[in-house]
């Protein structure tokens, strides 16, 4: 088992390199889970021009000022922070949709994160895909990083590249792996890399394993983080990640076991089907 630091401090950047692995979903859920546990959290979307974090939190209609407005001093930092509908501990600093990544420089974001760090327990930065300027900007103010990857070769390769860049970057004190969209069934049938394989390839400790969950799609469409759905295994996994960030020692979820009676029957039936085919 990996020993966590007593508690993660300061600014956490959530990055991946490859797109579509779940950076934004992770940001929304970890942020919500931390806020639910009573911490004050601010989420910063740095994906300027392709913002999505507001959608996942269901705050799209509340955004008046954005990160770019703060940087260009059209408003105060406090004005641009959008409070969450349910949890007043959670704030969002949205990205501008009508601009591009060059609107904010690394130094400007660093200033903002330093300001926010004083007032909030956690500052979580959602990083854009890629390793260009947007990535460099996003990691500028961060002291910790979570590298999100899926058990696919392409995502793991990109994660490796990102870890290399994180190690080279100034200011990043520690980084952890978060393995997303894991399918235990496929791992069992050797169709997918196991969590351990990914860890070994990247030689990096993990902070969480999130199982594949169709509920993520519905929660994204509804604008509600999946941690609010108590039945969801992915939601539980995200809550555990948040607790680990807070310094608690939480055992990893056993995601192998089918959840309920119906699933067991399904599994049994699918097994019969396969036998019949053979």
């Amino acid at each position, binding site marked *: 088992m990996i020993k966590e630091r007593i508690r993660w401090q300061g600014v956490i950047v959530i990055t991946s390199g490859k797109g579509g692995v779940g950076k934004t979903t992770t940001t929304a859920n970890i942020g919500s889970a931390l806020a639910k546990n009573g911490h004050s959290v601010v989420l910063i979307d740095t994906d300027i021009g392709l913002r999505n974090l507001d959608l996942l939190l269901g705050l799209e*209609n509340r955004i008046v000022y954005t990160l770019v407005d703060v940087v260009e001093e059209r408003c105060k930092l406090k004005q641009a922070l959008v409070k969450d509908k349910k949890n007043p501990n959670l704030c969002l600093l949205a990205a501008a949709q009508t601009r591009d990544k060059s609107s904010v420089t690394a130094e400007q974001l660093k200033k903002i994160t330093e300001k926010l760090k004083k007032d909030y327990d956690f500052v979580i930065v959602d990083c854009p895909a890629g390793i260009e300027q947007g990535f460099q900007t996003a990691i500028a103010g961060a002291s910790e990083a979570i590298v999100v990857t899926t058990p696919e070769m392409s995502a793991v390769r990109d994660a490796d590249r990102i870890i290399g860049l994180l190690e080279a970057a100034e200011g990043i004190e520690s980084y952890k792996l978060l393995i997303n969209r894991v399918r235990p069934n496929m791992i069992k049938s050797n169709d997918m890399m196991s969590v351990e394989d990914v860890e070994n390839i990247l030689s990096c400790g993990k902070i969480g394993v999130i199982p594949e969950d169709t509920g993520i799609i519905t929660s994204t469409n509804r604008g509600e983080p999946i941690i609010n759905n108590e039945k969801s295994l992915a939601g539980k996994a995200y809550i555990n990640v948040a607790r680990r960030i807070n310094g608690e020692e939480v055992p990893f979820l056993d995601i192998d076991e089918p959840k309920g009676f119906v699933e067991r029957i399904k599994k049994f039936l699918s097994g019969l089907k396969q036998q019949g085919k053979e």
Partner: protein
Amino acid sequence: MQQFLDDNIYVMDLGNSNTTADVIFELSSLLEKDEVKNKKICLKLGDVNLNQAQLLSIKSLISGINSILSCIDTKSVETEKVALSLGIIVSNISAENTLEVTPADTYKMADEIKKETVENTTESNQPELSDSAYDSTQNDEYYNIVEESEEQTQETEQQQVIEQADIQSENIENNELTDKNSEINSTSEASETNEANEENSEAKTAVNEFENLEIDNNSSENQIQISENKTNEITKKAEVEDELEVIFGKNPAETSIFNSEKESVYEEETEELADIVVPEQAFTKEDIELEGFPTKYIKQTMRSGQVINYEGNLVIIGDCHPGCEITAFGDITVWGVLSGIAHAGSAGNQKAAVRALKMNAIQLRIANCYSRRPDSLNSVYIEKTNSFTPEEARIVNGEIVVFKMND
């Protein structure tokens, strides 16, 4: 060009439209024609009840094509009141008269109406009417200012107009006029204008001439007589008029149903809202501003991340997807689904409005007011049907209210 010199007043018959949506639809189709540009327009409305914002927007639509809404014929008392409050001349023509008039006569009639109303307003002691007269004079001044600037830009056009006007006035002398009352006057005046035109051959003097035509009833009457001789165009217009000519007062008065969708705002947010600063050059004469603004037409689908910022009225023919931002000094009209952010009256104009066939905007901003889409309306996409109800958002008592323009 020929249509331009035709005459100054154009009567639009919207009597067959029984709803506000119909009126705006008819109007927009009529306004696309070249012949209504640079004209004084006389609107014939049936029983439709128009509110202030709707009438204002019609006015601004008309001013968008360099024309002026000079007078209105309505059967609705509400519309009449609103028109009076906006300084638009209201005339009362009986239904029988309007049905029997020939196109050429309607032009003249429009002018007579104007005369009558001016006379009425000056003679009567009613405060409302006298107010309207006051307003109308104010407006006339304003229009003249506008026209001056327009006509300076159209110097070449003016020259051609004058040349053609000469020919026309000669025709008048040759031909016999059917109208008994105006026969003598028009021929004498035609010769007068003939002389005037010979004297004022330059474009700059044409500007003055046109102003005179507007203000002076006699001269504009003369202009109408000129149009009588242009048989080709009259037949064209007669066709249009015939198409539009419908009996007034068949349907009961329209009642617009106001489905206001309000939402309370958090205390914190109201604090934030108070900090939204309207630029210092906020305009005060808001009505005049709205109708004076130029209008820009955009025929495209506005997609996420696209921004339009225009110092005037905006008409977007197409959908506005979530994530786009439309900002205009004046009104915003979206001929499609509005799902992005719209900010009308961005220079501080409280009278500005946002209109859309389907209002699904994430945020609406008018002047310094702000409203957001209710969280309950979190639909993934809007199904496109043939039965949209146009909606309009405007400020009522400091809040943005969305009205459905129902039948």
